[in-house]
Each structure stands twice: as C-alpha cells, then as structure tokens.
C-alpha cells in the first residue's frame, strides 16, 4: 500500500509512513491533479510537519478555499477576492496548527460555496475521481475529490445546505456537518451565517471523529459558538448500536429518488437491522418546503454577507467614469460569477421593501416548523436515516443551465442546516456506472456521537471505502 492511501488513524496507530507521507502525497498530486483539479492552491512541497505529537501531528489536511489562512491567498474561488491575503487565521486553522497538522493546500469549490457541482469556480471545474465526466458535487467538491483521489489525508469543508455531505456522497468518502455552534465559524468566509458549519471530509469515520476532536469547541470570537462540554468523539466508535431507534422519513423516499440509490439504501438498512437497529417510519411533514425556505434564507443572508466585496479594501476593483457607485457596480458585475450574481440579487429581492414579509419573514416561520418536525421526531427516535442525495453524481454541464434543478438536488441535505442538527454522509454502495452512493444519518443537536457510532458500525460491516477510483 502506498503512504498516500493511509488514513490519519492508520498513520497514528502504526506510527509509520510519516517521513514518506508528504512526498508520497506530492507524487500522487503530480500524477492525478491535472485530471481532478481539486486544488485552487496546491500544497507547497516545503509544507512539512511541525510536530508529530499532536492529535493530527504531521497529518496533511487540505482546506476549502473559503477558510482564512493568515497571509495566504484565500479566494472563495472568486475573481473578486483576487490577491486577497487575510491578516489572520480562522479559528479552525489555529486549532489545526495547534494539533500539529500540516496545512495541505486550498481546495476548489463553487464560488462562495454557491452550488452543488463545483462547476461555479473562477478557477475551473473539479472532476469526480470515479468518473472524470461527472461532477464531484459541491460546493466542497475540491475537498471531497482530493480525499477520494488520495491527494490529501483529510480535508476541511463547509456545509450550508449539504456542501460537505453531498460531495462526500458523490465521491464515496465520509462528510460530516456538525451541529450549528459545534465548530467556530470565525474565519470562514460567510455564505449564510445562520446555516454555515465547518466540518471534515475524510476517508473513514474514525478520521472524521478525530478531526472533529481537533476543530470543535467553544470559541469566544464566535457569538454563535456553543459553550458546552465537548466529548472525546473517538470514544463513540465501536459502541454498540443494538436497540438504536432510526427514523425513516416517508417524505424522503418518494418518486424523486433514483432506483439505484433506493436499492443501496435498502441494503444499508438491512445491514443496520442486522446490527440491531430498529427502524421506525416517521413523517417530517414540512420537508417539501425546505428547499424554498433554504433558498430564501440562504440568499438573503448571502446578499448581505457579500455586500462587503466592493473593491474598497481588498480584492478586485474596477473603476469607470461613474464615481463610487460606478466602481461598486462594475467591480461586482465583473467580479462575481453568474451564480453569485443570481443569488445575491435573489437575496436582495426577498429582503426588499414590500417583499420581506411575503418571503423572508415567512421563510423564517416555516423554518420554525421544519425544526419542530425534527424536535417531534427525536422524541421517538435516536437518529434519522436517508439517502444523502436523490441521485448519484450527475454529468458535468447537466444542470448548470437550469439553476432550479441544481437547487433541488440538495433536497435531502438542506433540512439539517435549517434545523441546526448534525448529519453525516458515508458511502453505501455504487451505481451500475460505478458512481458512489451516500447514506445520510441525522441526529439531535450536539449528538454527533450517535452519528459516529452508527456510521462506524455500518462502515465496519461493509467494504465500500476500499473501492478506490481508477485513476
């Protein structure tokens, strides 16, 4: 086995391969990156271990390019942030550095995390390592592809409506969106502040738990960070799941689901049943409104969060004859890509005078109902199990001309962000075309341990993670 294929857990356990690790990964990147294009900024050959002793000592971790690293280019895959170097580290970066991790390049994404295919990047699209004609999912497509193609050991992504889980599902890796408030957002360039969470994309569940141990915890710089006890998530692995009650929401298993995905899910359910999980049919009645609620709230917040990209203090600037307003309009008109413009304008519209009550306020109220659906369900069950996405990866270009169809591909992942609850996607099979399928588990707020023990138990009973893309 090549070093680049190791997981962080294996590297720590064997305490081998560390010397060869970075050079092995660099060779791998040299061999495959031209096909995948997972990175906006490739890891520097000089990047090496500071210390081996920390939780992620000498382990390369790549970072989605919407997370600030001090004095290094941070682009959000947008032209408008060209040349911008933050004068500070995001909280997760400080914690990763503290843990001894090696920062391993910046990964590609949909511009400002707007998208589900990583096609909306100023730096070009990323490919799915399992089939280069297919998208890796998005918006953390670069992170998921880099992990799947063994170009990194771990990657850090962000998830606003499924941006970690959906690409993890499309690329056959593990993606975790922690509870809102579990991981500090300080230094994550905001898309939608009330929905964004940072989380790990890893090769297996153990690395996911290990990484969450490092990046989670209270941060006084983030008012929405939860000041609560943080368990050792590794300890959840291997715990018995016998008697665990899992809900199967009927709204997730309707005609919209691809038969191959449905089949993989059914098989996964059988595996978990054999482990003693009790499945209970449930209803999350407001599910059908989730996408609409999401696209109102997320774009409204985004329209405000992205107002600061105006050419005054940093990044791209274009001047014309029309003074300061002309500069704003030209800078933003030329600096943002099509999807960014679409979302900012939509978000501006739903907040504008005369429409606020009809759209934004109404969406906040329906959000309450969606959250209540989960609160009610969790009175009876311990977790919810669904597909991560209604389909496996789609072809490049397939949905780019039809934004609404792209938005609807997030249908299974969006609710977790609206409700603030944790969710994980793990590989649970492949389609006939050889594309991975993902299983999503959702749990109560701050109960990532249930996700880890369930996911780990399933992972140990199956071999999906060993199916590597042929590159």
């Amino acid at each position, binding site marked *: 086995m090549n070093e680049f294929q190791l997981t962080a857990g294996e590297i720590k356990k064997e305490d081998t391969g560390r010397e060869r690790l970075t050079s092995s990964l660099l060779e791998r990147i040299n061999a495959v990156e031209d096909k995948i294009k997972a990175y906006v900024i490739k890891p520097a050959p000089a990047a090496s271990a500071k210390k081996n002793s920390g939780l992620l000592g000498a382990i390369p971790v790549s970072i989605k390019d919407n997370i600030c690293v001090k004095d290094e280019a941070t682009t959000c895959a947008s032209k408008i942030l060209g040349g911008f170097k933050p004068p500070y580290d995001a909280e997760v970066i400080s914690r990763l550095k503290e843990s001894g991790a090696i920062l391993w390049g910046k990964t590609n994404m949909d511009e400002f995390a707007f998208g589900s295919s990583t096609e909306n990047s100023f730096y070009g699209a990323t490919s799915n390592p399992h089939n280069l004609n297919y998208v890796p999912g998005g918006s953390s497509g670069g992170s998921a592809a880099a992990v799947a193609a063994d170009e990194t050991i771990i990657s850090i992504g962000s998830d606003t409506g499924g941006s970690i889980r959906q690409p993890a599902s499309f690329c056959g890796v593990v993606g975790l969106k922690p509870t809102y408030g579990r991981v500090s957002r300080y230094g*994550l360039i905001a898309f939608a502040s009330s929905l964004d969470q940072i989380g790990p994309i890893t090769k297996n569940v153990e690395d996911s738990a290990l990484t969450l141990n490092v990046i989670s915890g209270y941060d006084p710089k983030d008012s929405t960070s939860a000041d609560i006890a943080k368990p050792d998530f590794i300890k959840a692995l291997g715990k018995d799941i016998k008697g665990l009650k899992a809900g199967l929401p009927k709204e997730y298993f309707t005609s919209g689901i691809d038969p191959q995905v449905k089949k993989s899910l059914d098989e996964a359910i059988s595996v978990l049943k054999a482990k003693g999980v009790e499945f209970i049919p449930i209803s999350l009645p407001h599910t059908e409104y989730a996408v609409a609620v999401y696209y109102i709230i997320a774009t409204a917040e985004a*329209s405000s969060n992205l107002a600061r990209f105006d050419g005054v203090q940093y990044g791209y600037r274009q001047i014309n004859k029309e003074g300061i307003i002309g500069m704003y309009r030209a800078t933003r008109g030329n600096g943002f890509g099509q999807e960014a413009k679409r979302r900012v304008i939509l978000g501006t519209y739903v907040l504008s005078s005369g429409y606020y009550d009809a759209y934004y306020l109404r969406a906040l109220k329906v959000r309450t109902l969606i959250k209540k659906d989960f609160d009610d369900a969790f009175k009876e069950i311990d977790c919810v199990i669904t597909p991560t996405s209604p389909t496996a990866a789609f072809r490049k270009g397939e949905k780019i001309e039809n934004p609404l169809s792209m938005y609807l591909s997030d249908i299974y992942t969006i609710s977790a962000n609206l409700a603030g609850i944790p969710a994980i996607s793990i590989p649970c099979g492949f389609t006939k075309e050889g594309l991975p399928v993902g299983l999503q588990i959702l749990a109560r707020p701050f109960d990532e341990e249930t996700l880890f023990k369930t996911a780990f138990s399933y992972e140990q009973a199956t071999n999906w993670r060993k199916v590597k893309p042929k590159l």
Partner: protein
Amino acid sequence: MNYEPVIGLEVHVQLKTESKIFCGCPAKFGAGPNTQTCPVCLGLPGTLPVLNKKVLEYGVKTALALNCSIQPFIKFDRKNYFYPDLPKNYQISQYDLPLSYKGYIDINTDGSIRRIGITRLHLEEDAGKLLHEGSDAASSYVDFNRTGIPLLEIVSEPDINSPQEAYEYLTSLKAILKYLDISDCDMEKGSLRCDANISIRPKGEKKLGTKTELKNMNSFKAVRSALEFELIRQTKAKENNLKITQETLLWDEKMQKTITMRTKEEAHDYRYFPEPDLVPFVIEEKDILSIKNNLPELPRQKYSRLLASYELSEYEANILTSDKNLAEYFEIGAQIYKNYKNLTNWMLGAFLSELNNRKIAPENSPVAARDLINLLKITDEGKINNLTAKAVLTEMFNSGKSADVIIKDKNLAQISDKGMLSKIIDETIKENPSPVSDYKNGKENALMFIMGQAMKKAKGKANPKIINELLKERMKNA
C-alpha cells in the same frame, strides 16, 4: 395665519468605553488614520462580531435615566446600504426590537416644566470617516478608526414646539448623559451628533405637515439656528402657497442657512433583517433593578436637593446642576465652607468666568474646591479685600499656586494697621483740600471720593472697613 413648528430630534452619542462595540480595538479619539482597526472592525471576510458587555450596560443605564422601558428580549439587525465608510456595507443596528422605548425628559422652559417624549433608544456601530482632501481631487480617502465605536441613538417624539425648546432638550439630555458618565458628549469631536426634523402646521391643527430633515449642525446653538431658519423658510413658503418638499437639508454654519444636498438621495431600502452573527439578549428584571439602584443622582434630582439644602435660588441651582462636575465642585466646597451664599456668588461669578475664559471644564479646573474655599476664608478674615481676592483667583488659575503663596509673594495682604492707615488718611486729606471742604459743607458723596483716593494710595490693599471708620472719625475732628 399662525403656524407652530413640530420638531423631533435624533441624537447619536458615542459611548465612552475602552474598546469598540464588537471588537477589542481601542475606542479612543484622534489616533492616526487606520491605526485603530482589526479584522473585525474592518469587516474582513470571515470575521464575526461579539458584543461589548459595557455597551449594553451603558445602554440600559441611559434608558433608565430617560425613563424608558427596557425590552425584555432584544436583538440586533443589519441595515444594508452601500457607502465607502461602512466596511461591510451593512451597519449592525437595531430595528424592531430595540434596547428600549417610550421614555421622556422633563425640560425647563420659561420657568415651567415640559415633558418631551423619547420614542426609542437603540445601540449600533459607528461608521468610518471620509475625507475629501488629498493629492487627488478625483478621490476620497477612508479612515476606519471610528468604525465600530459604540453608538446610542436616542430618538425623541415630535413633541418639541420651538427651536429654543430643542436647545433646552439637548442641554438637558447632555446633562443627563454627562451625569451618567457614559459619553464625552463633545459635538466638536463628534461624540454627540444631532439631526433634526421639522414641519409646521396652523396652530391648533392636528395633522402634521411635510417635514424636512436637517443635518450637519455642529453645536446646540447651530441646531437652534438651523431650526429657526427652517421655521421661517417653511412659514414663508406656506404663506406664499409654495409646496414644501420632503428632503434632507444641510446647515451651512458660515452662511447661516440651510442648503439642499447636492446629490439626489435614492429612495432608501435598507433591507433590515436579524443579524445572524449575534445572538439575542435577554435582560433579566433583576439586572435592570440592580442598574436602576446604582444610577447616580440625575440633574433634576440634584437640582431639587441643592435647592432645598443650600438656600439657593432656582436660577442658581439650575446653573450649578447644569454640569455634574460643577455641582460636585460646589458640594465639596459646601462641606468645608458654610457661607453657601458667598460660595455660590463666587462660583457663578468669578470662578465660572475664569473657566469660560480658558474654555476648561470644571473637572479640569487648576483650582481645586479646597483652594477656592481657602481663598474665601482668607478674604472673610479680612486679610485681603474682595477686589484683591478676584485678582488672586486669576493668578491661581494662571500659576496654579495657592492663595497664601500668591498673597505673600505679591505682598497683597490687606493693611489693617490703624497707625499706618491713619498716616495714609492724613496725607490724603492734605492732598485733597477741596473735596474735604465740600464734605464739611454737607456734600456726603465727597467722602466716597476721598475714600477712593486713600484706597489708591494704599494700592488697593487697605482694609475698607477700617479705613472707612478712621476717615469718618478724622473728618468729624478735622
């Protein structure tokens, strides 16, 4: 027809905290451009605000002092608009659940008390500063030091009925804020800013007229002048059947008139929505009570107490309590000096004029209350006379020396020695034969002249009481 103005004021005060509202940058005034900024107040991508505890505390304190109700559940909102002094292109402010609402201030106009309503009071962040002078006439220059200085916005009801009342309202409000010690309230430095809106209507009419908004006033007097100007302008317009348009006007201090803003303002659409990066705040009843119990004495209370305790006139009490530090100065003095009348006269007379001449605030007076009292005691003892005492006070302000030292150094002590004074009187009588004979012929005021001449001879240091007695005696015998 008789018109009456309807005036409302919107006051912004910068709170006197160590650090900014959402980050730890110092909140000091006057630092070099862009030297008091950090990623948070620069609004750099990825940064997040965290509320300064003191800001909320100061807000509650002020709200209670202005008799406002405190909202039990408050939140912050984003006010979205593009402007280069606003780094995020939104201002964190409060919209539908502000810190507090529905209060009032009692003001003193023409000897009677008027109650002016306060609509609301909310917290927000200040914006940066734009400068328009630089090497390049086609450019403006941005300094973000002021960005994130905590601001309290205090909005009055349109209860104000004259420019003078607006002036009184501002004076009373400022006094309260100074008593609370939550702001410097310095309009020149921009730590207190005031916008006004004014409309007029026929006396007795309920319906409001079209209002204009006045900006750019740099003093309370300027607010009053701008309102007076606008009142006349609107009245003339009405009388000539001209339409009054709703617009924002700038006060031109030099020209003493209002001018229309050059750029046409777009219709505002601020797209307020709840700030997701800050959590809501719940202010417990017990915290409100604790702040309430620890409120300092406020101007109206101090006024009543001083009036009752120190035999002051309403006028005197009013001036003394217009400034917390002046009142405190008085009370320190009154503890060690029981002739309140004399103390009041001195403070409102010589002392205040020394301060005003030097444009210094009572708390920065180089002459401490103790030193002033010492001077008064020396005067009472007859060591110097009143006239000399005033000169000594000036010298105390100039040099910072004590009264004793100045009197000694300049040899100003009063002459009370009867032998010496008799000699002076003898000489004066000799040198002024005709006034002396006038007096003897029954012209009473001639004595005053002779007395003045004797004083002059004594270089003003003669004890007036003794010299008066001696002179009368000598004239009887002469």
